[in-house]
């Protein structure tokens, strides 16, 4: 065997080997469905690696699904106006948080069989999503057309929206923007909690209250998730302290406090919650929501 025969392969190996660290991640995230920059993907995982504990937040769709099962009614005036979209294209925080708010509004319309509003709010999500680079999630597979066509079939449209959710989760994950998912969820949670409080105030339905309490329980996980990415956007410190205040008010409800102290499971159908205890939380959530949509 001549040495010359292996000279070039050897040089190629030497060249590439020098650039590789032991922990460097070798990913191939691009695919036919979702195109991503694989060079950015390794950084996402590096962020994950810094935190021993991570959090997997639920979707706005599931919150609305659970809320609807409580028998909550539909109050259209609670939705955030679609006319506001353009004014949110000013920062990553505003874009993300309002993407979450419109996702929540869409889900609320969907499970209440409000077909026309659902069509309008999926378009609002698409537009907000475009500001966040999510065009592909809404444009592939004729998503909007299929949504419009199947609007009267709840199972089909829920499936379509779930697929959009999966695609957006993938895109944020692969494009080093996992923190946007967390901020968007904070927006969705604020909107759904705001709606739940307003609906409960109107109807005084015990099942709606139990559903609202379950939503408030999520505040702790949202705080921990936001703390994991606090340095990503300048608005996050204030958002965390605002949700922390809501969480403190929630934990101060006498029956919640007692269950926490005894390390008991919550039974929100049986736990007494006074109007005064709820009023403070309602005000805090309304203020947070107002600051997000202004």
């Amino acid at each position, binding site marked *: 065997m001549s040495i010359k025969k292996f000279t070039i392969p050897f040089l190629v190996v030497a060249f590439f080997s020098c650039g590789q660290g032991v922990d460097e991640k070798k990913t191939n995230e691009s695919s036919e469905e979702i195109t991503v920059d694989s060079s950015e993907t390794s950084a996402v995982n590096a962020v994950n690696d810094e935190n021993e504990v991570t*959090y997997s937040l639920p979707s706005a769709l599931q919150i609305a699904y659970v809320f609807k099962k409580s028998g909550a009614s539909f109050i259209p005036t609670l939705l955030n106006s679609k006319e506001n979209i353009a004014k949110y294209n000013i920062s990553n925080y505003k874009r993300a948080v309002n993407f979450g708010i419109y996702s929540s509004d869409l889900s609320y319309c969907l499970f209440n069989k409000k077909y026309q509003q659902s069509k309008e709010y999926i378009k609002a999500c698409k537009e907000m999503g475009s500001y966040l680079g999510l065009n592909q999630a809404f444009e592939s597979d004729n998503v909007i057309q299929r949504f419009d066509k199947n609007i009267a079939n709840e199972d089909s449209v829920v499936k379509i929206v*779930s697929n959009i959710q999966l695609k957006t989760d993938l895109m944020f994950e692969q494009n080093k923007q996992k923190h946007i998912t967390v901020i968007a969820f904070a927006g969705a949670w604020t909107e759904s909690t705001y709606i739940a409080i307003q609906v409960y105030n109107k109807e005084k339905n015990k099942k709606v209250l139990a559903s609202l309490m379950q939503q408030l329980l999520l505040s702790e996980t949202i705080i921990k998730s936001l703390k994991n990415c606090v340095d990503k956007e300048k608005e996050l410190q204030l958002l965390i302290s605002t949700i922390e205040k809501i969480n403190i008010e929630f934990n101060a409800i006498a029956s919640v406090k007692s269950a926490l102290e005894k390390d008991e499971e919550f039974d929100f159908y049986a736990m007494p919650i006074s109007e005064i205890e709820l009023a403070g939380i309602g005000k805090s959530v309304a203020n947070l929501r107002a600051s997000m949509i202004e």
Partner: protein
Amino acid sequence: MRKNIKYLFTLITIFTLMAFQDSDILCNANDLKLKAKNILEPYKYDSSELTNIIYRNKETLKEVEVPMFIGEKYRIIFELEALPKEIEVQIYNKDKESKNRKLLFSSKELAADKKEFQFEISKVRHVFIDYVIPPAETGSYSGCAVFMVGYK
């Protein structure tokens, strides 16, 4: 011509060996999640998480908290095929700092070569998924684990 083919073959072999020189595994999040999605049905997609698994010189643990709604039924799908070495998946009712937490599931109960499996649960307000990562024999290497949550 024959010489060129030999030459090309050598290059391909070298590149293939280079790709796995640290026993790292290619991690295609899209493929893994789409596979999980297929098994998830008829449950509705809720969330998913790709976790980077790095094998170091000692056993390590990574925990993911998954909040849930009491009264809902959930299915969790795990895709572990992008891992160079088996890990243990444990599911608890409380986090790793809690003294009295209860083990709800362990992948040890399954066949060792099982790379894809599911777990169903209801009546909980969150679960904690722990990846118990065994030590690497030499150096360190990596892969990734994916789980997906669906509700009914």
